[in-house]
């Protein structure tokens, strides 16, 4: 899909943004989607330059069940297969849960990796593993040890010119603290929005000049602060001072400029589009994420609810699956309409999946031997299934995939060299992917 100007989906001829540029695209009979696409094309003049890709993550904290979503086992015994039936998608032969009818219609632009595994079954170490690529925290020490995917992307791709925070968590970062930057420095921690984008009158706290402060005054104050903020930062070996100083400069830039406030102003969106994303936290978070990457953020993590369904899983899932479906599917459609799908990667993952066998409390427990993640956009091939689980879902049947393989796929698509190393606190260079390899089948 990356190098092909036209790609045939179930019934529409779609034109990638870059292809539209090279062709010039004076097509007739354009709908709104095409107009948007053309506007995007028109904004760029001259030679198409390589655009920085970005990533939107849907993090399913607690561990989403793979068996009831992206890797169904309809032919296994009832105590394994669960309550839901599979439905066909717009990709022949690929089925997903009936609870994801809207993703089923855009499956040609999404791919499922069904063979992710790491083998740890405790929330904290697993969440660390999936989000940093490394096993790390132990009982002797559970503090975050390696930087998260988003922090590495922020550090590698954050555009110095932009006032946008490179890495944003909506509505806030996951509770373990494994979405942070650790030794990359506090500047690459996620910016936590701090408010629910679905709330009435949603706004990011403190993102404008306070009363009676003109731009000139703000600039004077910033200059003075620079003069007086001279305490040796190295006296604080935990680097809290260092981080605060960086953030102060960033905050001044954000507040004295327009770009960031505009980006967070979700009320500028068409109410009909907002309805399609869904008037719930997942949907509006996804929409906000799109606005943010459009404005220059390179990674936005949408933290969805808690998926740790040990008990009564099928009732518990009711509140989660439809909103997640609307959020992801509408994001794919919206990005497509704007000609941005090739520029934005989508990942949906949690720390692990859930046990194939339903337990005595009608729930599923932690399962990390084989589970699924969803990948799409960013030039990755859609409609593909990578790897396979065993007949009842227990282990990897085919093409085992590690957390670092998933990360490597994303870094590779984003133009981040897989040779990249960052020094930890002791000065030891740590690889961003270790032995991970990009999933070539998606290239």
């Amino acid at each position, binding site marked *: 899909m990356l190098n092909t100007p036209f790609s045939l989906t179930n019934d529409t001829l779609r034109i990638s943004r870059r292809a539209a540029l090279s062709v010039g695209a004076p097509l007739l009979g354009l709908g709104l989607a095409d107009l948007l696409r053309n506007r995007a094309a028109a904004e760029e003049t001259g030679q198409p330059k390589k655009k920085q890709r970005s990533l939107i993550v849907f993090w399913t904290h607690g561990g989403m069940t793979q068996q009831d979503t992206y890797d169904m086992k309809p032919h296994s015994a009832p105590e394994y297969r669960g309550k839901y039936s599979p439905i066909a998608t717009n990709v022949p032969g690929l089925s997903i849960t009936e609870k994801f009818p809207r993703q089923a219609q855009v499956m040609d632009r999404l791919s499922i990796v069904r063979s992710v595994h790491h083998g740890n079954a405790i929330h904290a170490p697993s969440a660390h593993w999936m989000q940093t690529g490394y096993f790390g925290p132990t009982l002797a020490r559970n503090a975050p040890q390696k930087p998260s995917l988003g922090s590495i992307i922020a550090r590698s791709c954050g555009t110095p010119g932009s006032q946008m925070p490179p890495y944003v968590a909506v509505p806030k970062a996951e509770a373990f603290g494994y979405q942070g930057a650790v030794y990359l420095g506090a500047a690459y921690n996620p910016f936590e929005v701090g408010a629910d984008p679905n709330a009435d009158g949603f706004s990011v706290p403190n993102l404008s000049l306070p009363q009676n402060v003109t731009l000139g005054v703000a600039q004077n104050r910033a200059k003075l602060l620079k003069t007086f903020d001279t305490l040796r930062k190295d006296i604080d070996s935990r680097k809290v001072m260092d981080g605060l100083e960086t953030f102060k400069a960033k905050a001044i830039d954000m507040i004295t400029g327009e770009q960031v406030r505009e980006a967070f102003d979700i009320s500028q969106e068409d109410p009909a589009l907002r309805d399609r994303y869904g008037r719930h936290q997942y949907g509006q978070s996804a929409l906000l994420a799109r606005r943010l990457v459009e404005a220059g953020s390179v990674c936005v993590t949408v933290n969805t609810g808690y998926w740790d369904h040990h008990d009564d899983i099928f009732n518990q899932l009711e509140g989660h699956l439809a909103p997640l479906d609307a959020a992801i599917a509408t994001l794919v459609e919206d990005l497509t309409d704007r000609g941005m799908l090739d520029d934005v990667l989508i990942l949906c993952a949690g720390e692990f999946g859930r046990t194939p066998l339903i337990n005595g409390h009608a729930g599923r*427990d932690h399962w990390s*031997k084989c589970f699924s993640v969803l990948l799409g956009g960013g030039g990755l091939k859609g409609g593909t299934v990578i790897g396979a689980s065993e007949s009842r879902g227990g282990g990897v049947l085919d093409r085992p995939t590690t957390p670092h393989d998933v990360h490597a796929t994303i870094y590779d698509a984003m133009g981040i060299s897989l040779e990249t190393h960052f020094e930890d*606190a002791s000065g030891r260079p740590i690889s961003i992917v270790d032995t991970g390899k990009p999933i070539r089948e998606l290239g």
Partner: protein
Amino acid sequence: MSPRRWPFSMMILAIAACTPTASLRADDELPRPYFEIDIVPTLTKLDCNSGGCHGKAIGQNGFKLSLFGYVPAEDHEAIVQEARGRRINFAVPERSLLLLKGTNAVPHGGGVRLKKDSVEFRTLATWIARGAYSAGESDPVVERIELSPREAVFQPQQGEQSLTVTAYLSDGTSRDVTRLAVYQSNEPDIADVTRDGLVQVKDQSGLFAVMVRFGEHMTVFQGTVPFHTSGDASVASSPPESGISLIDPYLGAQWKRLGLEPSVMTSDGEFIRRVTLDICGTLPTPAEIASFMEDASPDKDARLIDRLLERPEYARYFGLLWADVLQNRGRGYSTSRQRPGTALFSGWIRDSISQNMPYDQFVREILTASGNQETNPPTVWYRTVRTTSDYVESVSQAFLGVRIQCAQCHHHPSEHWSQEDYFGLAAHFARVGRKGGFADAEVPTNEVIFLAKEGDVRHPRTGKIIPPRPLGGPDVDANPYVDPRLQLADWMTAPENPFFAQTMVNRMWGHFLGRGIIHPIDDARSTNPPTNPELLAALTRDFVAHKFDVKHLIRQIANAKAYRLSSTPNASNENDLQSFARYYPRRLKAEVLIDAISQVLDVPTNFPGGPGAFPAGTRAIDLPDEAVPSHFLDVFGRPDRSSACECERVDDPSLGQALELVGSTEIQKKLIAETGYAARLTNDERSQTAITQEIFLRVFARVPRDDEAAAVSQFFSEEADRAEAYRSLLWSLIATNEFMFNH
């Protein structure tokens, strides 16, 4: 586990019964493997019974072992009996499914765990060949393990040390279990450890511990990697002369051992700011600073500390911190209903601190509280702490400094706590009765707490009733007329209790010095040793000898030389994070920070209350619970009070904090208030120099440097609007790290 001993003759018989009976190909070179001593630890070492594999609650592919092998009888049944015995092949032991799976000869989800011909393989095969016996009553048991060496001092950034672990058995024999023990380092950046027990020093210096576990026995190796080897001329040999506190010699000895030279003493201005913030959560005023600086008497620090301890802000500030630990939580139900309760409890805490109530009595009154919130405010503790797990976890974390959560479901993997310990502690609360109250949401308010006639706690696995037993303590006599909570309080507050006083000492140390001697402060374990055990023991003894006098404890700590050291590092201690050879700076806590801003600008913060507002002048440190809305407090890390862990209060920097400084109306409102300090300065007739001096004293507790004074003059000559000039100057000083940190 209590050691079991058996008459010698019985043992002979038992061994005879276990000798191989036929021509099974037993490995004669190996001593007879015992199930609990050899087999279970082998499975542990191979990770078979870990939480990700067969050790998890539902097992793995139908084969379930107890987590880390803590229930050997069940493990034996799973291996030998279950699945119609197909896991064991007595005829050809090497063809046992257990071994075929382990070696991946038969496809195994866990891959190759076991190499053929390895010692582990031979041990398992021999055990099968000789009958795959379970733990017989005559089997010897492990009485203790010994580690050699138990400690070592390494050269900076180099060196290895292989550990040897010996198990001593109840039959008087011993054996080397180095291969079977499990190892874990608590500071992998200083030293790591291989699977075989080889400790390898990395490139950082400091103290580290390696946890060594064999079965349910644990021990710890303690390593020291000095920053500079002795004889290094750049390191001064003697710490500064000792002060009046008992602490200094202990730290001095450690600095010497580690090759650390302490930083110089800090200035008077920095010290009065530091200690006023730490004891009263308040900035010193310019007048207080000036008079302290002028005071030339040798005991002026001690007198300052005494004065601060008598100020009402001491009780208000520590009242806030204790309300965190005691989970005086307002969220979760209607604010107007719960606020009276949180206000009463927080008032009770403040009063108790103000009266310097001995710490043992303070905790006893909370633990044993009965009645309702009006008659006995500490009953409010029971509002947030209301389930079996709440009782156990809050009590152990807040008062015993122990994290016992793991033991709810299984043996604690890095400490000796078992489910019996967990539910034994829970049983002390089994008779807590509740009645009345108003429940409009998840948590009732204003309940009456009383001692119910009966109530018990059952072991989740065996279903047996577990009698009350404090952590590691003796069984207590169950008596219908005695509140089991009293028995717990008696045990806790006894002078010889190993946890209670130590936890308080460590908590206070962490408050003043920025890090516990045991770190984190509520994670005391034999496998997480204190960085200075002698110091912790001495302070604990002193605290107990002074009848749990908290002000005495604070005096001991605040008068120590270490607390007077500058935060500026020297060449030798810049990487020290554990030994207090300099003061570790930290950001002001959320409430202290907003109060400090209010104090400098002389404009109080308005906090919305439930039905109305809090009275004017209410400080953030006075707020009764965490449910008082304040974005400033949330973004700067006010804790949620949903657990007894101090770790809920965070000081990580964030963009949200910077936006609060730069963009919030909170600070701007104080800058433009007509009655505020900034407005007053606009009409101040004094010279620019005098005003600048006062501002710097007020904000930083020091006079401006020449370059700073020049920058102020320059700015005032450029800024025509004098009122805005003062606002901008004050804002820029408040937003500095120097203001936002205690240093």
